[in-house]
């Protein structure tokens, strides 16, 4: 763990601690109240498939708005500026719409309980195991990254020792996820979303006042290291590490926009689980689409504060920013990951400070809770129930779920230390996603639309794709292939996708497909239209509840935003 020389200690007083305590009391209260609705394993792991779309939609966004997102994206904002918005616009929204419109009918309609279970029904056991285990491992690693960030921030802000904050945070997250299951996690994600906005929106507004409004920010960023290209999201050369504009745009559109983002948003069970908890097919399809509205606007309260910190915070501006961008240590000892904290320290009075701290801690805990609540589902249903202890009564799996949640929490404390060795945590996470998610998307999309694709092709494609992402990772890490910024992850994801498709097609040609009768509900051409469409009566009626129309509105806003920035 690095020791930061910059003084980040926030001057929190009694009022701030009271505001923090109010938040934590509600978090635990939600866990306690949600527990009363848990009477079966489906209640625990999928909220009994009973939640309204606005709740699952906000949870869908919040589950991803963890520590890594908030700290990492403001760090990216300070370092690269507006191109960071690609992670939201190109890198999330189109994939979320695709999930809601195209893929959700298969996920929700087939009544599978997890993404790996879909793999099991479509491709059989080997692909199921590969997916289930790689997902479980990734979740524990990412939960560790969330926990590490939480602990180091509490340490910096409030002066608590790292080990104390790790344990306190882990115990709080564990208690509400183990008690109330997915419902507790989802309701807390909604609450977290509110607190984060209440913390970051005022910070952004005050920050803009500080630098003299939007024009002041434009002038200051243009004059600083990085120059005016940090104000336009395209072509984003600094972000991708490509010097050539065309390659940079290609990397963004294909690498980030297509492979990484579709892989993450459409096959990552952390996200899909939230939609599966919705109460109807229509609500499930609307979940990612409703989530896309706030997703479009989050860059403004995450990236812009980062950019403001890069020009207004003494420890990050001028020579410090230049040194950090060159990959050196800043004379001040600060890093881009500190951007948001430094800005809070400089601008917020007591009171707002308490809410800002609550917002940050909320996002760290919710991120970790999302990892835990999806990990316990996959482990219990897809590993324990499928291979180790079959055919036990439902109550047994409910208990397993709670115990597994506790074990995963302990493991996450261990993986927190792996995360601590990376300077820019976003790089680390992008690497993980490219290993696991990019090939998964290739296999899914092929499997959903090509009925001939065989079970053997399913798992060989996945393994080959993951291995090629690992190969690219090793090449870039060892310096054989030099791609600074996050270009390495984009290339790795692209390679994984292409290799997966190639291997899947080749293997399919020489192996035996599953009979068509086993693929109903799982493959487009073999699923009757009725099971793919949703009800439009009762609570699913009304034009404002049409998934297609909502998706169209989101798409128009996205395009407009891309033209403006």
């Amino acid at each position, binding site marked *: 763990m690095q020791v930061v020389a910059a003084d980040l200690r926030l001057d929190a007083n009694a009022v701030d601690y009271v505001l923090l305590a109010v938040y934590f009391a*509600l978090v635990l*209260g939600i866990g306690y109240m949600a527990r*009363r609705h848990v009477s079966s394993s489906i209640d625990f792991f999928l909220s009994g498939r009973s939640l309204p779309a606005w709740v699952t939609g906000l949870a869908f966004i919040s589950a991803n708005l963890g520590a890594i997102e908030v700290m990492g994206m403001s760090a990216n904002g300070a370092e690269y500026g507006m191109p960071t918005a690609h992670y939201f616009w190109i890198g999330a929204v189109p994939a979320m719409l695709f999930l809601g419109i195209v893929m959700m009918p298969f996920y929700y309609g087939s009544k599978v309980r997890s993404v790996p279970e879909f793999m099991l029904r479509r491709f059989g056991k080997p692909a199921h195991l590969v997916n289930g285990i790689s997902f479980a491992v990734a979740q524990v690693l990412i939960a560790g990254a969330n926990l590490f960030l939480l602990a180091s921030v509490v340490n910096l802000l409030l002066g608590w020792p790292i080990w104390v904050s790790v344990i306190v945070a882990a115990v709080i997250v564990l208690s509400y996820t183990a008690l109330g299951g997915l419902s507790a996690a989802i309701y807390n994600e909604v609450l977290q979303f509110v607190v984060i906005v*209440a913390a970051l929106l005022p910070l952004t507004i005050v920050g803009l006042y*500080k630098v003299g409004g939007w024009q002041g920010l434009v002038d200051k960023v243009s004059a600083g290291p990085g120059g005016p290209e940090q104000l336009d999201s395209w072509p984003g050369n600094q972000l991708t590490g490509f010097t050539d504009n065309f390659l940079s745009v290609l990397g963004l559109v294909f690498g980030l926009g297509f492979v990484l983002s579709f892989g993450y948003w459409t096959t990552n069970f952390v996200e899909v689980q939230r939609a599966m908890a919705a109460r109807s097919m229509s609500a499930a399809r609307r979940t990612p689409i409703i989530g896309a509205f706030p997703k479009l606007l989050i860059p403004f309260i995450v990236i812009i504060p980062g950019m403001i910190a890069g020009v207004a915070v003494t420890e990050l501006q001028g020579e410090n920013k230049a040194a950090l961008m060159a990959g050196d240590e800043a004379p001040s000892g600060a890093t881009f990951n500190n951007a948001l904290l430094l800005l809070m320290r400089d601008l917020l009075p007591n009171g707002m400070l308490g809410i800002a701290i609550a917002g940050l801690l909320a996002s760290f805990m919710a991120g970790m809770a999302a990892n835990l609540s999806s990990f316990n589902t996959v482990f219990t249903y897809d590993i324990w129930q499928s291979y180790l202890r079959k055919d036990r009564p439902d109550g047994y799996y409910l208990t397993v779920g709670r115990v597994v949640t506790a074990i995963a929490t302990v493991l996450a404390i261990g993986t927190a230390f792996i995360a601590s060795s990376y300077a820019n945590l976003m790089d680390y996470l992008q690497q993980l996603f490219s290993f696991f998610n990019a090939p998964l998307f290739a296999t899914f999309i092929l499997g959903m639309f090509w009925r001939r694709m065989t079970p053997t092709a399913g798992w060989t494609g996945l393994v080959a794709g993951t291995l090629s992402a690992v190969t690219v990772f090793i090449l870039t890490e060892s310096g054989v292939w030099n791609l600074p910024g996050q270009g390495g992850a984009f290339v790795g994801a692209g390679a994984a996708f292409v290799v997966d498709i190639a291997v899947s097609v080749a293997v399919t040609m020489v192996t035996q497909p599953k009979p068509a009768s086993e693929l109903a509900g799982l493959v487009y051409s073999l699923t009757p239209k009725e099971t793919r469409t949703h009800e439009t009566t009762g609570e699913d009626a009304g034009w404002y509840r049409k998934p297609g129309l909502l998706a169209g509105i989101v798409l128009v806003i996205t395009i407009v935003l891309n033209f403006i920035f």
Partner: protein
Amino acid sequence: MSTETRTSAFDIRLIIAVLTGVYGIVLTVLGLFVTSADEIDKSAGVNINLWTGLALIVVTLLFVVWVRLRPLRIPVHHDEEDTSAPH
């Protein structure tokens, strides 16, 4: 053990309203009576406690109105399999 009445008592919108309400009132009071001129200077001349507090109170009222207009309905189980489960 009937869950119906409890279900209607647990509405996430009210919990959000409690949080934003408490935060809004505390911040407004701070902004009006406590936040010093030095602190306002630090925030680029904006009394951010007061403004955020007022905004949160408005948000609270919106959630309360929403709950009043569309109260949580007691879920009716459509699935046959649910009738066998203990309530």
